[in-house]
Structures are given as structure tokens and as C-alpha cells.
């Protein structure tokens, strides 16, 4: 089984590991090797999207939401990965986290990190390419419409994400 020397940026810090299996999935590496259990495991086949993390090719590049359960380590080598543990700033919550709290967006909360990270990538996209206000709902649906939540019926997740988009300057034309 192929082994690689892993070298990537995780939540703002360079992370290296020698001789890891190239096809180990990112979610397993985060949870089992690094103890970063904020990224959740649910279906393991890239359907439910609870394991979503955000990846950029290089620092400052576009954030892309990917499924950590089907992303092998070889695919993230050299890249920039942000997980839910990297969202807050020394305890100060990201506006998405705060909006999720204020809207009672989640219940059991297991799918929450996936919704957060997909929305995080969406905010980055809108920052680079703002959309008209009337397209916001479609953008939210496009970003998290395939995420499964069993508790909430999605109502408050969408409300919270929309609220952050509308309240963050520069995301809507």
C-alpha cells in the first residue's frame, strides 16, 4: 500500500506526517490520527455531507467544500484545509457559528460541522462573486441542499445561512 509524506496546512498550521497511507481518508486521519473529532462521520460514501471540510489549493485561493470521507490524503497534500475547529478565532465565534446558535439551527448537532463548512465555502465564493439578493436562497440551496439533517427539517439552517449572507457586507450586489 502506497505511503506518502504528508505536508499540508490545517486550520492555519502546517501539519506534516511521514509514511502515512496515501489512500487513508481525510476524515479518518483527522479523527483517528489527529484527534480532531469535530469533523463527523456518517455515511462514509459522500452522500450525507456531514464530513464536509473546506479546502483551498493555496492560501488565499478559493475555498471548496469537499467530503472528507472520500478524500484520500494524497489529494490534500500541499493544500490548505479548514475544519470546524478552525472556524473560531481564539474563542470568538465565526458569524456562521453565532447565527447557527442564535437561530437554534441544529438539534442533535451531528451534521452541524458539515453545514458550517459548506456555508463557509459559500461565503468565500460570494465574497469573490457577489450575487443579487434574490439569488441568495438558490445559492444556499446549492451549497447545502444535498446535506442531510435528520432533526431539523432544514428550516433554521437555511434561515441562519441566509441571515449571515445578508448581514455580511459585500456578499450581495
Amino acid at each position, binding site marked *: 500500500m502506497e505511503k506518502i509524506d504528508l505536508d499540508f496546512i490545517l486550520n492555519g498550521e502546517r501539519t506534516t506526517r511521514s509514511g502515512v*497511507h496515501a489512500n*487513508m481518508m481525510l476524515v*479518518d486521519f483527522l*479523527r*483517528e490520527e489527529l484527534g*480532531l*473529532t*469535530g*469533523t*463527523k*462521520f*456518517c*455515511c*462514509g*460514501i459522500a*452522500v*450525507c455531507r*456531514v464530513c464536509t471540510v473546506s479546502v483551498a489549493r493555496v492560501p488565499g485561493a478559493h475555498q471548496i467544500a469537499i467530503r472528507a470521507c472520500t478524500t484520500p490524503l494524497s489529494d490534500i497534500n500541499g493544500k490548505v484545509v479548514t*475544519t*470546524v*475547529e478552525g*472556524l*473560531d478565532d481564539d*474563542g*470568538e*465565534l*465565526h*458569524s456562521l*457559528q*453565532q447565527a*447557527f*446558535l*442564535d*437561530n*437554534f439551527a*441544529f*438539534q*442533535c*448537532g*451531528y*451534521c*452541524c*460541522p458539515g453545514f*458550517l463548512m459548506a456555508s463557509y465555502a459559500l461565503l468565500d465564493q460570494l465574497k469573490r462573486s457577489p450575487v443579487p439578493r434574490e439569488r441568495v*436562497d438558490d445559492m444556499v*440551496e446549492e451549497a*447545502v*441542499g444535498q*446535506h*442531510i*439533517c*435528520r*432533526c*431539523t*427539517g*432544514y*428550516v*433554521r*439552517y*437555511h434561515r441562519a445561512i441566509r441571515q449571515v449572507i445578508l448581514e455580511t457586507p459585500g456578499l450581495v450586489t
Partner: protein
Amino acid sequence: MHPPSSWQAGPGKARYRIDGRTKVTGGKIYARDFRAWDIDGWPAEEEVVLVLRTPFADREFKGVDVSALPEELRPKRIITGEDLEREKIAVAEADYPEGNYLVRPHTVPDYLGQAVALLYFDDFHTMDRARRVLRSQHNRGLDAGPEQPTVADGFYQPETSIIHAETETEQIFSQVRGGPVRPQELQTERDREAMKQVDEIHERLNNPSAFGWTVVNRSFETQTIDPMFMEPESGLGWLDRSSGTLNLLIGTQSPSYDVTAAGELFSDPQSKLGIKHVHLISAYPGGGFGGRDTSALCLFLALAAAFSEKPIRIAYDRFEQFQAGVKRHAGTMNMAVAVDGGGNLQAVRHHIFLNGGGRRNVSTYVAQVAGLDGVGAYEVPLADVWSRPVKTRAQIAGSMRGFGTVQSLFAVESMMDETAVELGLDPIEFRLRNVLAPNQEIVTGARNAPPGLKEMCEHASAHRLWQERDRRKQESAGTERAHGVGFALGMKNYGTGADAALDEVAIDPDGKITVTTNVIDMGTGTATTLAIATAGLLGANADEVRTGVLEPFKALQMVEGFKRQEDNPRWTPIIFESTKAASTSSKWVHGVEQACAVLLSTGLLPAARELWGNSVNVAATDTRWVDGALHADGLRAIPLKDVARQAHDKGHVVSAMIHAFYSGRWVEADYTVGDETFRWQIDGLSVLRGGKTERELVDRKNPKLFTVESIWEGNGQNFGASACLASVAVNRRTGEVTLQEAVHYIGPGKVLQQDLMEGQLDGCFAMGVGQALTEDIPTFEDGGGNGRWNLHRYHVPLSGDVALGRVEKVILPPESDDAPARGIAEVGMVAVAPAIANAVAHATGVRFRSLPITPAKVREAWSG
């Protein structure tokens, strides 16, 4: 960026969930997140265990076959049923899989998905790779014999019969007049009397013209459903051989039952494993919906730990969760409805068959509830409801949100529409002619009907969607999509009719309040609700809520049993209860409020009186909390922390631990603490005084208790009302049903926290959509038991499926100032699927009597 903020928004209010910050920052909170090295006092090194399961139950299991695994993926050791037999593993209590926990080699498995072996690995990655290889094998790592005939189905006992007969002036036969009956067994005089009533009902249904009745006979089916909570079950176990303590960490709805069941595994006197205690650490479950109530995971953690020198970890993946997890019962409902010329229901025969799979689990209770809700929200003079849990080789079915009512109400509410069509009546008008009034007798004969049923029907009848239903249907003729609107009315019990709560409220010298409880929070917001429940009497929210806790409550020394022990002040019918039946709001909140009452009256108030001056004798009713300080007319306000400090310094009560029991009313009794006697609605009390480490038991006096008979006669079920009006579009080419708009009705009574309550409703709605349209899994060999099911084949509704933003909530106001807080997390679900089915029938002109209504079924119906 936002600075850290408190979840609290003032006394009795929550800005966000008490568990919210941990969840939104990815903190360790779920069982799946913990490793042995995270737990204080546990050895750091763990083994990872794979529970191998059978995809067949129609041939001999000859043994485990891991020959497909390369050497580096081979398990270190394998534990089989023979090992369990050798170690004298006993049978755990009846709600759990009863024995044969690992199928013995050279026997035929009892059911699909049954465990056959425990495979031990040094690390997660090796186990994970091994399970993928084994899953790819035809027999999933099992050596199997030739196919052989399967065992015939049977029935789990007891079955539920609810026989009701009344005239216009009197009740002739009912459940509350003498308790449950089993007419088919004919063992008692009452059974024979019940059978006589059954015969008479059938006689009339078979000769409707003699009575001027119209009789409609139909059969309905509902599918097997997976609870599909998002966190696949996981947990840790460690047998500390030095103390004989079996430690478990698990996310469960039934911590008390799990501990009991795990302990019972090792109760054989010949067991050499030396397990004396079971200690359970309760993690927040990543969803539950019933699926974690008396789940067998605790047994496998216990068994795996017992056969290891190290802590062990089990972490199902989603394929395993589909294979191992309990399901919602597939249902077959045969129903006959008789109506007189005035559109009044006269008789109902409803025979319900619920597929419980290979183990009883809680099937008999599910059948009981299916029967209880077997004639819906209507007045029916003659009823024969017979609800039967069926024993088959299917996967185990058990508790799930809706708990039997989902199945029976789909039949009832479909029948109401079908019958209305037969009679040429508007379906809502037909319901209005028969709907129960508040406190009217339901099918059991108890005066339990909830308020709001009529109002929901009337509101829906006047709603734009209903008013325009025929016009919109006509307008859609010839277009790509046929439009239809359907309505369904729901009535469902919350609580079980015999409910118990354990709560402790403690205050530290700084005024910090901690609630400790055996209930858990599977996402419903229980912890938050209990945290704000202290504010009414203590003027402040709890700062901490510890859920799923058991051991401290041993201090109450309660003993249980349904047979009344008149002179034993520790006796109660039930000590523990699972977190289920949407009872948090009504039951555990009561417990917390009662504990607060004890703490106020025997701790804080005496302390405040001292601070005010000993001559002052202020009653609790003369005080009020304002801005965190205790006020009384003419006296200075004292901050809570000063009162708490005084209580601690002067040896007043600083912790009140209670047990409460409910069956239509709470047990209440007198309690003397110090030289004062109080009457509280609790049946067990222990207090702790400031400066002490030993708790004091306070014996109850003059209790108002129950007997078995009074529980039956009182029929202490509570019921709630819900309804749904659904508008659908059915694609004429693809057969796809799309939800267009909906109105969702609920009568919650007193609302404890608006956001949490509305969130529950949203979740109920989505789950109802799944029940109606998207979720389906075969019940037998092609289903979850074969280990090949995951979310690529099982379709949980997405945001695009639930008419997001187009579901209007109609929340009925409390009917009175003292209206109870009703459980809504199940009540709110049950009307959704039948409303959608009725809408599809309206749109297509075809009645679909089998859920889910898939595009293939619609296409087939239209082409036929």
C-alpha cells in the same frame, strides 16, 4: 467575529441551546468522539472490535470465515457464541435481544443482521479495512450451509385488544372499566364478554344494510423505516478487573436499562468474569428518534469488554448501522369502517400487524400504542382494535418516533378520506361530524381527548389550500403535473401512561445551580429546557445540566414493582424510564420544578429569613425573584448568591433529589424537613444540607398512590392534537410526487421554549415526508440486514423535498392559563404522511394504500 456569549437570555429564557457552543465548535460531545485515553482513570491503549453479522437467516451458520482477509488485516482473536456459552453469559432483560447474542456455529440464525462474532483488532484502521473486505464477500465473512426452509412467523405476547361498546347513554364495555382484555384467549369471564362484543361488532359489520350503515373495508401497508440518526452507534467499554467494574461510554436513550441489561449478562452464579458493577458514562447522542432506546449496542460493548484486557471500542459505519440498528415496524392494517346515513361513524374494526423481526424488543408496547390510536381522533360507539406484533426473521424493529401511531393513523386517516368519498362528503366535513371534543371519551373509554381537534379541522377547511383544492386540480388537468390537496388529523399519546422522572437540583455556595437528571438530550433541547425550568422558583437558570446520570439517584433507595407496597415509603411503580414518548416537557420539567420547590422552601427561604432577621417569617408565596435577588414586601432584596452562601454556611438544604411518578396525575405526599411539613407532587425525596456530605432520606407521609387497577382505570395517557394540510404536484410522466405547500397544526399547550418547540415541528414534518414519499428499505433478505444498505439507496428527505419556506405553522394557543406543556415531538409527526397520501389520491384519483408512494408505484397505477 463574535465574542463568546452566554446561552442565557435572562431567567427562564435561552438565547441559544445550553449544549450549542460545544456542538457548533466541534467539541467532543458524542460517543463516537471519545477514545479510551480521553477518559480519566482508563488505560490509554484500546482494542477496536468489529461485530460481524449475518446477512441470512435461512441457512446454517457454520462459522466465521476470514480467509478473504490478507494476513495484516486478520483479527487478533475471534469471540463466538461458543465462548459466550463457556463463560456462562446470561440473558439480559426482555426488551433487549433475548439471548443467543452471538449465533452459535452450526445453527440457523434467528433473524437477519444477527451478530455472529466479535473480531478484535489493534487499531481502527485495520478494523475498518478488514470490514470493507469482509463486506465485499458474498457471505460477508460467514461460512454458510445450504438454504433451508425458514421458521414460521409467530406473535409476540401480549397482543393488544381494545374493545369499545357504548350506546347513546352508557358505556357497555371499555378498557378503563376493568383493564386490558385478550378476547381471543378466552381465559377470563371478561375475555369472554369482550369476545361477545367482538362477535357482535363483526356481525353488524357483515350486515350493514340491517342497520342502515355503509361499510368500507380496506387494507393498508407501511414500510420498514430506519431511524437514520446521523451518528452511527459507537461506544467504549472497559472491564476494570481490579474492582470488578464494567465501564461503558455510550450515547443512549435508555441509560438505566442499558446498565441493568449489561449487568444481567454476567449474573450467572457460575460466571468467572467477576463483574460486580456497571458504570455508564452517557454521551450526547447524535440523534435518536427512538432508535437508541433499548438498542443492543450496550450488550455488545459489555461482551466485547468482558473478553478483553484493555478498553474496547465499537464504531459502526453506516452499512453496519443499517444492518444492526432497530427499525420502525413495517405494518399491515386491515380496517372496516361503518357509517350511518348522517355520516356518523358507528363501528370500526382495525386489525394491525406490526413486523417486530427476530426479537421482541419493545414490539408489544409499539403494538399497544398502535392500538391505542387505532381509531384516530373520532368518536366511535363500537370498536374492535386488535394490534399484533409479529415475530419474523426480519431485523429487529423497536422504538421510533411515532411509535405505532404512524402505522395505525395512516390507515385511519386514509380510511376517513376513502369513506368520505364513498359518502360523497367533503373529507374535512366528514371528520368534523365525528371528531372528539376536549375530554371526550376515547376508544379506551377514558376521558382523554385533547383540545384543538375541531379547531384544526375548521381552520384547514377554511384555508385557501382547501378552498381552492378542486379548482386547482381542475386547472392542472392536461398539464404536466396533477395537483391535489389532502388533509389528515392526528391524535397521539405522549408519555406512556406510567411515567417516572429522576431529577436533582443543587446550588453551590456561589449561587451556581446544577440540574442532574436521568433523561438525556438527543437533540430535542431537553438540557436547555431543564436549565430554564429552574428560573420560576429559584430566579435563575441552571448553569449546568448533567444528563443521562444514574448513580447518584441510588440515594433515593427506591424499590419498584407494579404491585402496591402500601407501607414502604420507597415503593414506586417505575424507578427509571427511557427518554422517549416525547415526555421531557411534561415529566422531567415537573421533576425539576418540584426539586426547586424543595430547595426553595427548605434551603433558600430559611437562609433568607435568617438574613432578613429571624423574627421574619416570610412564606414562599410572599417572595419573588427580581434580577437574581429574592424580594419580599418591606424587606431588602438579597442576591441569590448571598442566600446560597447562607444556606451552605448554616446547614440548610442545598440539594434536593426527587423521584416523581405520573399516571394521569402525579403521586403526591407530605414531607417533613426540619420542623416544617410540605406537600409535594413527588414520591421520593433526598436532601443534602450545607456542610454535609451524607444525604438525608425524607420519608413520604399521607401519599396519594396508585394501584395497578387505578392506573388502568385512570388510563393516565395524555394526548395531543396535530393536523396537516398538504398540497402536492404529481408528475404525469415520471410519477414523482412533489410537495408544494403545507400547513402544519399543533396544540402544544404551554410552550416552554418557542424555538425548540418549532424546531421539533420542522423535524416532524420532514420525517413525515420521508415516511410518505422517500424512505423505504426491504423488510427481509434484500434489506438492511444484508449489510449493503447506506444512504445511496435509503433516501432521507433533503431540503428540496420538504417545501422549505412554504410550510405554514399553526400553533394553537394554550386552551387555559394552566394548560399543560404537551409533548409534541411525536404528536407533530403523525398526520403528515397521511395528509400527503390523501393529497396524492386527490391529485391522481388513485388511492395508494402502501407507503412510500414512489414514482414507480404512481407510474404503475396510472399505466394500469
